[in-house]
């Protein structure tokens, strides 16, 4: 069982954060979480001044599946069709560190005690990093909901935050009711439909072109950034082995002891720094791209819904013409056409607002992360350099 507590300075560690004004009527955070084998239990803490809630300050325990349930109910709510629904946080994935830990256990006999301990420490740090990331991404999801004028008032959201029993019953019911129909439709058909519909609005035309193209590019960038980070981590691990062997040689070898021990220490520090560079890069770059890739998918989903509404409207026009021709059920057809038009207009209006604020949000997040990444890289390189200089001096003076 592993548990972590979030402490201050959280903002520095995350790639995406939500601007929270402390005067907001609804403040949510995940102060800690428990990891029990495969299940992560998040503690959701809410502080609110809203009357709709029973208490001003309370906490509940939730699992990842509860988040999925909440997200799905939002997606399936008609009223939210014109909004970008915050992407569901990905499932906690400890596969990678767990596999590595397993491999490490198998290879224990081939390493010195020191090497094994260091490798184990690195893996534990990786495990912890995965854990922290998953907590953050779940927290962001809730915070985006709480800071949105429409979502913050959602009934299911309130249940999620407040209901002091577990939500498994509700989850089961929801699955039976909706069957994930809408979700599947979106996944399989959106590209085709979005590109196929004739667009009258310049704004949406541009957005469509941009988002479709950008999604592909950011997906690729995410994958490449991931690979880069992994190589970097491998490199850092090599220094652990080098350092351990140098220590052994130094111990056997009186004449060159000081220099070998010095180098061994340098390798330890280089390893730590390279590992730090790798994880910072991951957080500021890879995680950023990953998050916005999902967010862009959510934006695309909005475009899809609007495209469907447009298609419905066009169909209703055709039906109205047909009815007028036949002079049958004209009133009904007119009403239906009006509804479709209203829905489409509503989606367009709200969609435009959402997409505009989305772009602004994205640019701000990119800026923040790129600055922070550059600053961290500089910091690490300077540390590395002073460390190396010290060692060179020590070796030359011997």
């Amino acid at each position, binding site marked *: 069982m592993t548990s972590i507590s979030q402490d201050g300075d959280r903002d520095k560690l995350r790639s995406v954060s939500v601007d929270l004004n402390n005067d907001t009527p609804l403040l949510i955070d995940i102060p800690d979480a428990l990891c029990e084998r495969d299940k992560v239990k998040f503690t959701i803490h809410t502080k609110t001044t809203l009357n709709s809630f029973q208490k001003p300050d309370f906490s509940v325990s939730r699992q990842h599946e509860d988040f999925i349930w909440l997200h799905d109910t939002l997606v399936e709510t008609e009223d939210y069709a014109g909004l970008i629904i915050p992407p569901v946080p990905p499932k906690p994935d400890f596969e990678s560190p767990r596999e590595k830990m397993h491999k490490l256990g198998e290879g224990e006999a081939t390493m010195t005690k020191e090497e094994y301990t260091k490798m184990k420490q690195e893996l534990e740090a990786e495990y912890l990093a995965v854990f922290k990331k998953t907590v953050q991404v779940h927290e962001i999801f809730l915070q985006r909901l709480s800071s949105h004028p429409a979502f913050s008032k959602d009934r299911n959201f309130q249940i999620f935050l407040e209901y002091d029993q577990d939500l498994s019953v509700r989850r089961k019911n929801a699955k039976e009711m909706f069957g994930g129909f809408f979700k599947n439709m979106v996944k399989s058909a959106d590209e085709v439909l979005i590109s196929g519909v004739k667009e009258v609005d310049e704004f949406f035309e541009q957005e469509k072109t941009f988002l479709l193209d950008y999604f592909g590019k950011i997906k690729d960038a995410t994958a490449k950034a991931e*690979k880069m980070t992994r190589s970097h981590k491998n490199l850092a691990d090599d220094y652990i082995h080098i350092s351990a062997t140098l220590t052994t040689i130094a111990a056997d070898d009186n004449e060159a002891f000081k220099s070998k021990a010095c180098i061994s220490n340098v390798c330890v520090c280089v390893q730590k720094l390279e590992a730090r560079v790798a994880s910072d890069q991951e957080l500021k770059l890879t995680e950023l791209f990953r998050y916005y890739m999902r967010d862009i998918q959510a934006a695309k989903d909005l475009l899809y819904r609007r495209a469907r509404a447009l298609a419905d409207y066009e169909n209703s026009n055709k039906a109205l013409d047909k009815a007028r021709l036949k002079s049958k059920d004209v009133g009904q057809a007119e009403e239906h056409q009006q509804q479709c038009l209203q829905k489409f207009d509503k989606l367009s209006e709200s969609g435009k607002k959402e997409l505009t604020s989305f772009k602004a949000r994205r640019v701000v997040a990119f800026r923040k992360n790129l600055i922070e990444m550059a600053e961290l890289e500089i910091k690490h390189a300077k540390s590395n350099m002073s460390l190396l200089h010290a060692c060179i001096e020590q070796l030359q003076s011997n």
Partner: protein
Amino acid sequence: PPSCLPAEDISTNSNGPKQEILLDDDQEDLFAEATEEVSLDSPEREPILSDGPSPAITPVTPTVIITPRAEASMFDRSLDEDEDTEENGDTFDMQITVSDPEKVGGFGCTSLNLFSRNEFSVKRRFSDFLGLHSKLASKYMHIGYIVPPAPEKSIVGMTKVKVGKEDLSSAEFVEKRRSALQRYLTRTVTHPALLKDPDVIQFLENTELPRAVSTQALSGAGILRMVNKAAEAVNKMTIKMNESDAWFEEKQQQFENLDIQLRKLHASVESLVCHRKELSVNTASFAKSAAMLGNSEDHTALSRALSQLAEVEEKIDQLHQEQAYADFYLFSELLGDYVRLIAAVKGVFDQRMKTWSKWQDAQLLLQRKREAETKLQYANKPDKLQQAKDEIKEWETKVQQGERDFEQISKNIRQEVGRFEKQRVKDFKVVIIKYLESLVHTQQQLIKYWEAFLPEAKAIA
């Protein structure tokens, strides 16, 4: 028999006069060196011929050929050497440079005597280097000299996995070989006895080398066979050597341990090189992807920043490549050289045991001859008796020779090991410092690139 097998007959004349002068003069000093820890700055050190290489010259550090990518100043060492020679006054220090092979023919090999300023430039094939080594090994290994091993014929390192843009390209392979040959030759001329060896001199100075008798046998494998034969002989020894000298036992154990650790270290460094090359490839790939993303981005300032990010990552890729180059040529190759050198050291220890065994065998045979003679004294066969007496004289001589040879090889090994240890410490220290400096250089560049990028990121509005 192939020419790489050792000269088994250890008669006093077979190795030429030079070697003996070397040994007899400096007995006491050699032992002193071998057992005491003499610091490089110690005032007692006189630059005598049989002494190790002068403390300041470090000709075994690899001079890396400048590629268009690497900065020349990083790896250039000729400045250091010239300064130090003047301080010392040694007359036999040589600077060796092996240059890129031309399309036809072989490696350009230039030797510059740092004192006399005599310079020779010749062209040699790879097999010529192997031939030189096999001659030297067959002449000197069995008397206890640590003959520097020739470079490997094969391309692949100890770990089979190679990843990289220039995967086993011929340019990379040629450079690796050229560098290895330079280090090999430099180590060879650093050895005070080998430097004066006629085969070495001929190699360095003659325009044309005599055709080797059997070129196929001139390989590392041939020498390996010789070393293995010695090891086999040791294993087959019926009487275990009664080591009266703890020094040898200690040293042998030490080299065993060092061998294991260096191999391990070498493997880790090869892994480091491999991962760094991978990182370079992945960084370049990411740079392209970031550039595409920048192009696709419709917010102008962010688009620019992303394009700049792509450029930074491209530059960082270059850095990784240069660093991998340093990882390899400074660190990894040095370790590989020393793994092979230690094999040569272990080889001479085995030769010593073989020599001892031969001496013991001679003693046994002498004993038997004496017993036979005693028996013949009562047999009244005067001519047979005379023959027996002659054989006894013959074997007495052989026993004496055997003892002398054993003492000689023991003395040589002590001297050689002392020299080797000092050289090792020096080599590693210099190379490690160079390597650390390469790391410093990388960090400096990283700071430069990111500091240039920072305002671009801040300019996103």
